[in-house]
């Protein structure tokens, strides 16, 4: 058995007096797709943001491939350059897309490739073309984000993240800002990546999608992991877990 790709131990994080994460332990193995669900304010997004150190944390450790992301072994914050290198190993797709509005779709994907991966312009353009094609936007390479629909923007966001060949892809409620009819095209792309063995950790409100696409679901509540397990088992066990049961009940009516 290999060591898991992502190892989170006793992760703690507070905003002021509010404890957002209370001792989180979580492993994600290579090629695993883990969905994080839970009510808003349960710490899902904060957990995700700690993994690529967009958020500092107060205690515990986050390791990717055995290396602590944000801190050196003596819990000193890593320097800017080292931190940037570590972050390049994790891809992140944001709820609000966060595409660079002054760059075309292709340039959005190319920026990290040229600046961080030190590819030549031509190489970067080829890789960008490949990934934009993969997300079904080969014909939109020269479009500015403002000329794309929300679903298209988010697919560029995914292409921008995966083109860096990250070890793990973090998806932060990537369909929450989309019109319902655009959700499907984005989830389809994620499904494709999962099938190819991309390791993913995704915070999502799409319970049906989490059930179908993930190998494991983590249910968070009040800054702790309240339940976890393979989708079918977890959902079946909900009867025994009042918080999970009431959370899922809200979705049952519409999705199940």
């Amino acid at each position, binding site marked *: 058995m290999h060591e898991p790709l992502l190892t989170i131990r006793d992760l703690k994080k507070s905003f002021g007096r509010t404890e957002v994460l209370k001792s989180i332990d979580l492993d994600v193995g290579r090629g695993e797709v883990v969905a994080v669900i839970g009510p808003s304010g349960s710490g899902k997004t904060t957990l995700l943001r700690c993994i*690529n150190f*967009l958020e500092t944390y107060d205690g515990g450790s986050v390791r990717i491939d055995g290396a602590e992301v944000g801190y050196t072994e003596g819990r000193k914050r890593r320097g*800017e*350059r080292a931190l*940037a*290198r570590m*972050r*390049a*190993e*994790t*891809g*992140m797709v*944001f709820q*609000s897309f*966060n*595409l*660079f*509005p*002054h760059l075309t779709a292709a340039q959005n994907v190319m*920026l*990290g490739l040229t*600046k*961080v991966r030190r590819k030549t312009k031509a190489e970067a353009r080829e890789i960008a073309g490949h990934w934009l094609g993969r997300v079904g936007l080969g014909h939109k390479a020269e479009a*500015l984000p*403002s000329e794309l629909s929300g679903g298209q923007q988010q697919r560029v966001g995914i292409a*921008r*993240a995966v083109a*860096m060949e990250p070890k793990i892809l973090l998806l932060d409620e990537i369909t929450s800002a989309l019109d319902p009819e655009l959700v499907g095209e984005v989830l389809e792309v994620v499904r494709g990546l999962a099938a190819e063995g991309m390791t993913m950790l995704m915070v999502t409100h799409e319970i049906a999608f989490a059930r179908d696409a993930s190998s494991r679901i983590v249910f968070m509540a009040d800054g702790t992991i309240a339940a976890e397990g393979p989708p079918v088992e977890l959902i079946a066990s909900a009867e025994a877990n009042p918080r999970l049961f009431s959370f899922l009940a809200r979705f049952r009516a519409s999705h199940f």
Partner: protein
Amino acid sequence: MLDAMIYALPFLMEGLWITVLVSLLTVSISLVAGLVLGCALIYGPLPLRLFTRLFSDTIRGIPILVLIFFVYYGFPAIGVDFDSFWAAVTALTLFKTAQVIEYVRGAVESIPRGQSEAGMAIGLTFSERLTSVIFPQALRRFLPPWINGVTDAVKGSALVSLLGVTDLMHAINQVIGRTYEAMPLYVLGAFIYFVINFSLSTLSRRLERRLSHVQA
């Protein structure tokens, strides 16, 4: 009236050159200083941020005329001696720098935090995020008020005549002192200032249009 204007023109051209020189120096030095201090105000360590905030607030709280006299009469007292030309340029530059600091701050802070985070997420370092992500977007918000400020600098440069620097304004007054024909000269002077500033604001509108496709 036309005769008076034609008579005055050669004198005014010399003054105009000084006006342009004062404006150019003010605008270019304040641009560099303002960009550096503006970044210091946003990203610098706390003492530097406090210093820059204090500098900007103080300078912007003083009438520019007071600032000019302060530099000309006050600075020699602390051992910094200027001739009137450099005293005027220094005062105008200090004033303009404080404005540029605020333009920079406003432009950079208008860029949503998510832009910086997206840059971090693909592994860009701080300076790479600034040059590739933040500044290109901030430029569009910085330029219109800044170019507007350039026209202010041209107009404001007329104040240097009060220190006896022979700029366009001073040249106008000198000619009037000889000919006692005030009206044609002021009309001509106003026209010259107007031509300069109208060209600048036309240029600014053009630039704005060209940059507008980078809508955030």
